[in-house]
């Protein structure tokens, strides 16, 4: 574990010493809970429609596929007209596009970013690498199955998928959201122990709290 995460005494600018325990002090200690639809069916439907028509993607290019996000957000394909925008902070994003392979080092950051997103949140896996390891199936540093570590709503085939395929994927995602079937966040909360065990089995220096929200 990194030194700055250990429990220790520090001296403030004013000269007063105090104890900090970063993992307890800075982070939440409550586990995730299942968030059932809070409203009557018709309102939930309206919200689902709004969620489907306003998809904010987290601007985190985890792998190769990120390069096709740029054409997507620019004149040629202009995803904005479909209600798709990007957000630089996970707090405001609803959709996490895992753009291909994940090294264990990135996986750690991806988990943190994912957990900081607000429910309902969605994950789309791009390309072979997220499905079954892709061309890095024998690499010591990349995971093979994304759904072992995060709940995934959709996969788009390709290496890497073109912007058109991404748009097709987003259209499908919208249908899922509207049908109320994109409940990955709840799935994550329900099987939290299982996901954590999987994550910890591949991230060898687990120096972060279990709850990152």
């Amino acid at each position: 574990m990194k030194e700055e995460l250990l429990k220790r005494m520090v001296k403030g600018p004013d000269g007063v010493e105090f104890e900090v325990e970063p993992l307890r002090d800075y982070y939440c200690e409550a586990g995730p809970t299942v968030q059932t639809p809070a409203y009557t069916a018709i309102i939930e439907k309206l919200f689902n429609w709004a969620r489907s028509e306003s998809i904010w993607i987290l601007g985190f290019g985890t792998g190769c596929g990120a390069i096709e996000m740029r054409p997507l957000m620019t004149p040629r394909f202009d995803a904005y007209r479909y209600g798709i925008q990007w957000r630089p902070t996970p707090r405001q994003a609803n959709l996490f596009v895992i753009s291909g392979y994940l090294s264990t080092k990135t996986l750690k950051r991806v988990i943190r970013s994912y957990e900081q997103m607000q429910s309902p949140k969605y994950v789309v896996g791009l390309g072979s690498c997220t499905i079954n390891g892709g061309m890095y199936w024998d690499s010591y540093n990349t995971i093979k199955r994304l759904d072992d570590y995060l709940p995934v709503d959709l996969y788009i085939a390709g290496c890497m998928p073109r912007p058109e395929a991404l748009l097709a994927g987003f259209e499908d995602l919208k249908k899922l959201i509207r049908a109320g079937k994109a409940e990955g966040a709840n799935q994550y909360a329900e099987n939290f122990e299982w996901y954590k065990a999987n994550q910890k089995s591949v991230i060898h220096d687990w120096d972060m709290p279990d709850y990152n929200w």
Partner: protein
Amino acid sequence: MVMQALYDTLKPRFLLGEFTKQRDDLAFITVEAVRLHALLRHLRDQEGFTHLVLLTAVDWLEDGQFQLTYLLNNRAKRQDVGLRVLIARDNATMESIHDLWAAAATYQRELREMFGIDFPDSPRLHEDFILEGWQDIPPYRRDFDTLKYAQENYRDRPGRETRDPAQHMKQQLYGED
């Protein structure tokens, strides 16, 4: 030809080993580890090989040796020379050259992490570079089996099976296995 001449002049002074001409503008020379630093300095300051193109290692597991390759470029004369240094694989250690080329420190960090070669005094040598929390033997060593590691650590999606055409045919056509 020019490379050969350079080799011939430097050979007695630095006790150079084998000379391999790969192209007109590229040759490899084997050097003893202890003479490398002086030779590099000479090549950089006197012979115009000012650009360190790369520094990397090759694992000759069978011989119990690491080959370190220092590739230098002389832009004015349009020549490259690769210096091969063979060092023992066990407790591999090599003199650092970050004092000659600042960028070499990065290469040396990578070699320490990926091959387990130590470069004493090289800056930030022991910080994690590419890997994070790596517990196995350094991955670029030949005796590290990446496929085995991947199979042990990352689950495959089940449902895959395959048949060998020859075996399958024998079975189908002759009922043999």
